[in-house]
């Protein structure tokens, strides 16, 4: 073995919060890396600000720094840890950029730290698009014509010479941030302007458009002996012009001859060598002209990427794990293929199945955002499915996205043929469904391929699915051969039921009666050439099942499906923890999930992995197969978020043993009426509320509970469509807008608690004892969704009395509902009354945060409780602390602040303007960070630095707040002035400040326009970079509803320039704390292990 013996301590850089374009795939890769390094006996230190990751679990590294990924922090960590090397290729673009900074600041040289897995020159050659193109051309391969521009004027001139449309792309950004397609000079001004802002080196590339060409990706690995393998080819079904992250993709490539494929492979390998990727994984994108086969190289990423996570899950070849081994000196032939256990990793996987990935979007959360897909990524998650044919994989993937209407449907008439063909021209979420409807309406494969640029082969496959519907019409007999035929084309029972006008349960019963069930095949990397010993399985309607038998009692853990806003990596964390804890307790763990980015879908995580959609049908088949293979202890539904929780009732009805909180208990917490009775019995308060299905009813409720009220439709979860309404007029408007309201689906109307402190609680309950995991006090007041609000743990202003009340209330709810396992409750404390907002009988988004802040593995404990352990047992075992809980933290416990990360910067409306950034009761954040330190100010400052960039310590603060906020803003702004900030304000705000002794310079509002002497407005000043901190609360005066637009331009300008923008006065107070803390002196770094040791040292 040739592992380098000189590497004894390695620093791994993570990727920070989940944002669009950089999601849990880097937790997956980072976790694998940490595992590999630890297994090699290397000391691992890690920096990652994202507490929801598995990689930041204290057991995965020797020193885990949940700190902002900034140069300053990294320098401090390096000074403290003195690692031999830094491994930056598994933490996405964030880590790679950080590595470049460490190099350029001289830090690496100063401390004698080596970069492993990457080489600065290679990073630069890969990421600097101009240099990259020179290298490719030097190899005799082609690239799209392009020119680098550093100013807008230059860009306009170049575009004229290239001809429109042109593609605009900044260097060094991820997920295509700041890129776009300009069809006109106006578009170009808009996009290039933004692109010049988005690129850290302020340059953009203008490129000849090759829209409509076929797009491919290859995932490669290289070792230090220059052995190179192509792990996977991925074909984008959406042609060039749609970011690969937003494209429906398929692996392996379906429409290349061997000659074309080998040409691509040869070019890719030559590029890897020429760029000089040191060791590890990299990804190269290609475009192929459909009519001539001309091939051009688009870009390369000299690191592990989202596509490599997909490729790993698609092939069973663990790219990140192997990249980590290569980085410490092994060569590919020295590394074993885990799946076969016999053959080496120096080979190229052969697939005997088809893998389809479908992105998941969240446009409904960003009204006004342009939903047309383009060169920058807009999706927030993805689902992957495996089938033995493209139709089977495609249909499984579509239903895996859990988006209503994602499955191909015959429910409604297709619509107008010509119109549908037109719609296929424009890339959009669900374009394949539009293709399907167009086929139904009589469009031909050729017409649709011409309109969409989608290869005719894929459209023909959709047509094949379309034609099968004829065998399912109610007049046809549904016998075993027909069922088998349509099931092997991926039809769900629900689709069949829809076509026949019966229930899905009827179809399922018939299918089972006829013995038509899927079998499970192994993802084995080798198309069955060698036996596989790792049970990584997928369902298919095929011949032979490969589920291995087993005697140990099994626990099936249902995962959380594709990432979406409100249900992301936090739930994957809980599932993975349950798997680890239960494996340790002697169970065989079985994971079911369909999200390729996650740690849960790593074949190493659980005893068995089923890569399957999380629908009732698919889960029931897994349960059936597992029952056939050995004893089943139960199924866990409470850790994967709302997705599995929603299956609880039907699974129970189908006789599946749910462990932990029962389906009935879940109903008690989820059903408003039932929950209301639980609260009433316990004597707990809830905001007054009512339901209405018409305006007069709504008005009657509002009159009774009193304005303001919070209104929401009852048929959606996750705060969708929620609004705060201040008067009758607005209420009437809301009821009229909410067209889907009916007596079965009324509007829910709650008294809105103004100025209330929101409190979030995660707790464990075993039927007798309550373990309060943590009490989190929100920074923003109630009314800002708990997922979007920052919060502090332990609470910063609540007294012991308040915590005692929270504990008591939580225990009453846990007992009243009948919780076994985890419970999350949200409270609002208003005028001394503790109101219960809602209770979720499941893991919550905050479980990983609480677990890390308090050094207590809540999800592991929950899993054990679900299988019968008591809290007392777990205390005795040492899994939970012997005494006390998260509600009795010592006074000098560290303070952890969670901050949400919002994706506003990624969205624009159809006119190219930014979308508003104001927070509300509907959740819109994609991820979170944690700042942890001894005191609140520092912890808060760290959280801000991790989420948005460091708080400024000097300069200009611009303040403009709503009338209702003027009073509470005075003190913190005064403090800012004392701390040395120059205060700017709009006229009204300035007046209030002056009267309170704060000198504020008046600046013009956007509405005022430039002044007589050309004095710029605040927006212009922000865009010019004259402002360092913005405080702007929405002018949501009572009586006004809908998007609160007054400060909109200010806030979008702030996002564009990346200037910290505080939108609540509570947030302002926290920010001032933070600024004071930074000014006071050095902000230190401390690992979770050190924090935990201190916590545990408490008597």
């Amino acid at each position, binding site marked *: 073995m040739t592992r380098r013996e000189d590497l004894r301590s390695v620093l791994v850089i993570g990727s920070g919060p989940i944002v669009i374009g950089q999601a849990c795939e880097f937790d997956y890769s980072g976790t694998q890396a940490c595992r590999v390094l630890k297994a090699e006996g290397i000391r691992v230190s890690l920096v990652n600000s994202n507490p929801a990751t598995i990689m930041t679990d204290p057991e995965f590294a020797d020193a885990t720094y949940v700190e902002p990924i900034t140069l300053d922090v990294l320098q401090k960590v390096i000074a403290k840890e003195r690692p031999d090397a830094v491994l930056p290729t598994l933490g996405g673009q964030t880590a790679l950029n950080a590595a470049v900074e460490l190099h350029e600041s001289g830090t690496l040289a100063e401390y004698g730290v080596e970069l492993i897995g990457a080489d600065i020159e290679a990073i630069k050659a890969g990421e600097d698009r101009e240099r990259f193109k020179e290298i490719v051309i030097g190899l005799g391969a082609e690239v799209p014509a392009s020119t680098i521009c550093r100013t807008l004027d230059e860009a306009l001139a170049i575009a004229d010479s290239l001809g429109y449309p042109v593609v605009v792309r900044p260097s060094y950004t991820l997920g295509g941030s700041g890129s776009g397609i300009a069809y006109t000079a106006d578009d170009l001004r808009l996009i290039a302007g933004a692109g010049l802002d988005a690129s850290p080196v302020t340059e953009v590339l203008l490129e000849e458009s090759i829209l409509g060409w076929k797009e491919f990706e290859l995932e490669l690995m290289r070792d230090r002996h220059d052995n190179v393998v192509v792990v996977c080819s991925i074909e984008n079904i959406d042609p060039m012009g749609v970011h690969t992250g937003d494209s429906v993709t398929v692996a392996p490539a379906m429409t290349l*001859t061997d000659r074309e494929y080998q040409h691509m492979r040869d070019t890719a390998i030559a590029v890897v060598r020429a760029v000089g990727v040191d060791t590890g994984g990299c990804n190269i994108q290609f475009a192929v002209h459909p009519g001539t086969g001309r091939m051009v190289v688009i870009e390369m990423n000299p690191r592990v990427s989202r596509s490599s996570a997909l490729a790993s899950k698609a092939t069973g070849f663990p790219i990140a794990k192997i990249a980590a081994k290569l980085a410490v000196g092994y060569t590919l032939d020295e590394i074993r293929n885990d799946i076969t256990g016999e053959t080496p990793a120096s080979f190229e996987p052969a697939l005997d199945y088809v893998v389809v990935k479908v992105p998941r979007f969240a446009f409904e959360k960003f009204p006004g955002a342009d939903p047309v897909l383009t060169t920058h990524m807009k999706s927030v998650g993805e689902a992957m499915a495996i089938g033995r044919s493209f139709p089977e994989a495609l249909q499984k993937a579509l239903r895996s996205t859990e988006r209503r209407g994602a499955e191909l449907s015959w429910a409604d008439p297709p619509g107008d043929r010509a119109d549908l063909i037109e719609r296929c021209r424009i890339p959009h979420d669900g374009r394949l469904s539009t293709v399907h409807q167009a086929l139904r309406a009589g469009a031909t494969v050729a017409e649709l391929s011409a309109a969409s640029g989608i290869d005719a082969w894929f459209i023909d496959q959709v047509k094949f699915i379309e034609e099968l519907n004829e065998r399912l019409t109610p007049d046809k007999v549904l016998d075993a051969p027909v069922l088998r035929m349509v099931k*092997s084309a991926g039809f769900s029972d629900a689709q069949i039921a829809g076509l026949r006008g019966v229930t899905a349960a009827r179809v399922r019963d018939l299918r089972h009666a006829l013995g038509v069930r899927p079998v499970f095949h192994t993802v084995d990397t080798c198309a069955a050439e060698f036996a596989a010993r790792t049970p990584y399985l997928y369902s298919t309607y095929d011949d032979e099942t490969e589920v291995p038998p087993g005697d140990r009692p099994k626990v099936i853990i249902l995962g959380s499906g594709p990432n979406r806003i409100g249900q992301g990596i936090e739930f994957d964390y809980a599932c993975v923890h349950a798997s680890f804890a239960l494996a340790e307790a002697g169970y065989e763990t079985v994971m079911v999930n369909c999200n390729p980015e996650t740690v849960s879908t790593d074949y190493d995580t659980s005893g068995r992995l089923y890569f399957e959609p999380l629908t009732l049908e698919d889960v029931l088949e897994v349960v059936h197969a597992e029952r056939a293979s050995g004893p089943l202890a139960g199924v866990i539904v409470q850790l994967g978020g709302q997705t599995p929780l929603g299956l609880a009732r039907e699974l129970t009805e189908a006789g599946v043993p749910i462990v932990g909180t029962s389906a009935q208990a879940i109903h008690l917490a989820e059903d408003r009426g039932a929950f209301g009775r639980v609260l009433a019995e316990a004597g707990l308060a809830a905001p007054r509320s009512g339901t209405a299905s018409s305006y007069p009813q709504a008005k009657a409720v509002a009159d009774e509970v009193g304005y303001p009220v919070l209104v929401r439709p009852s048929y959606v979860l996750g705060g969708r469509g929620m609004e705060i309404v201040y008067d009758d007029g607005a209420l009437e408007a809301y009821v009229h807008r909410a067209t889907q309201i009916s007596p079965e689906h009324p509007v829910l109307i709650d008294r809105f608690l103004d100025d209330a402190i929101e409190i979030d609680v995660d707790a464990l309950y075993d039927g007798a004892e309550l373990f309060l995991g943590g009490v989190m006090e929100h920074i923003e007041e109630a009314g800002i969704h708990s997922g979007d609000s920052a919060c502090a743990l332990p609470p910063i202003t609540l007294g012991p009395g308040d915590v005692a009340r929270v504990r008591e209330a939580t225990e009453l709810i846990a007992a009243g509902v009948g919780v076994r396992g985890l419970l999350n409750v949200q409270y609002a404390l208003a005028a001394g009354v503790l109101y219960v907002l809602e209770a979720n009988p499941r893991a919550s988004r905050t479980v990983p945060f609480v677990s890390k802040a308090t050094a207590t593995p809540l999800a592991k404990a929950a899993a054990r409780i679900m299988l019968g352990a008591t809290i007392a047992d777990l205390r005795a075992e040492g899994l939970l602390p012997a005494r006390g809980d998260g509600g009795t933290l010592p006074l000098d416990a560290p303070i952890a602040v969670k901050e949400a990360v919002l994706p506003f910067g990624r969205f624009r409306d159809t006119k190219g303007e930014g979308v508003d950034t104001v927070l509300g009761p509907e959740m819109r954040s994609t991820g979170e960070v944690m700042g942890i330190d001894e005191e609140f100010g520092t912890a808060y400052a760290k959280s801000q630095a991790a989420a948005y960039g460091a708080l400024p310590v000097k300069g200009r603060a611009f303040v403009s707040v709503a009338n209702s906020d003027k009073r509470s803003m005075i003190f913190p702004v005064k403090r800012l002035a004392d701390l040395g900030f120059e205060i700017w304000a709009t006229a009204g705000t300035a007046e209030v400040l002056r009267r309170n002794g704060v000198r504020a310079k008046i600046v013009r509002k956007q509405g005022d326009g430039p002044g007589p002497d050309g004095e710029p407005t605040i927006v212009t000043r922000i865009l010019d970079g004259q402002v360092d901190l913005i405080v702007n609360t929405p002018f949501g005066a009572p009586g006004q509803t809908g998007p609160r637009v007054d400060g909109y331009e200010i806030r979008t300008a702030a996002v564009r320039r990346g200037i910290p923008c505080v939108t609540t006065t509570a947030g302002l107070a926290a920010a001032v704390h933070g600024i004071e803390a930074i000014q006071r002196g050095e902000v230190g770094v401390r690992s979770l292990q050190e924090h935990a040791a201190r916590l545990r040292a408490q008597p």
Partner: protein
Amino acid sequence: MTLLDGSGVSRPAVLLLEDGRAFDGHAFGADGETFGEMVFNTGMTGYQETLTDPSYCRQIVAMTAPHIGNTGINDEDAESRRIWVSGYVIRELSPIASNWRSKRSLDAELASQGVTGIAISGTRALTRHLRERGAMRAVISTRAADRRELLDKVLASPQMAGADLAREVTTPEPYTVRPPEGTRTRFRVAAVDLGIKAATPRRMAERGCEVRVLPADVTGDQILATEPDGVFFSNGPGDPAAAGYAVEAMRAVLAAGRPVFGICLGSQILGRALGLDTYKLRFGHRGVNQPVQDLTTGRVHITSHNHGFAVRPPDDPGAKGPFGTPYGAAIVSHRNLNDGVVEGLRLLDTPAFAIQYHPEAAPGPHDAEASFDEFCAMMEAPR
């Protein structure tokens, strides 16, 4: 797996193995009853090259990749004058051919060449079966026949062990492949066609070789009479033990000290000429992802394979050192990292080497192309 013709009617067919395992499916290509050795290929691209590779003569080939036919059939990618597989087993036949070079569909091509194909759902089950029990004889039949009778016919069909097939597939007449316009002719190569693929002489011609392709049963004297700078022994079908004529020819060339390069069957012929034994692998190597390590440099190449036989290494299989042969010392130069099978031989005192895999690829990766350069270097070296 669902295969319908334009009228929505499918033609039933059966694949029956000699151990009685049967797979029902749907026919494509020509109707008929066809026998051969059942093997599987794990390549995900290159079905046209595979079908036309003479080494597949008398074999029924199953593709593990589920979708076949997607890119149709074109006029450039065939590796020989015809399709050689005796039957073709796939899971999903593409209803359309979608590629800019495609001229016709796979279905039509098989039909016009009289080759019977069958689409079955259980290609993976079949592969697992062959992996466990080894390659075996089989039939694809589109005729509604009695299973028992069909099985008897399978059992009566010829075995691959002992089969001499190179003479069946070889060119009837010699022909010459010249360097492309603009490339200087540097060497004259005599290529013994034991089942040569079109890409092979092309790869040599690109390097300045004028390649004289000779029929399989050419004698050593006849080869040397062409005054070649080097002699190439190609890939091909069948059992090397049954191709004694080629072994004889090889010996004559070695004795004359002419540079020799062999691939695939040609490599097994070299092995036998050196006095080594050859044997039948359980299920062979057929695919484009096989890791082969060069034992002298440690480098690994991902290579294209199609072989059911292999050279048995001298005495103990782990031995790396040189061994004696009538032509001086020799070494095992390459091994397959999956299973340790001998993938290359090299003589140390005579200019001769051979590899068990396909440097011409087609289909497959081009990692091993440098073997042709090595052959040229050998021819260049002063003798």
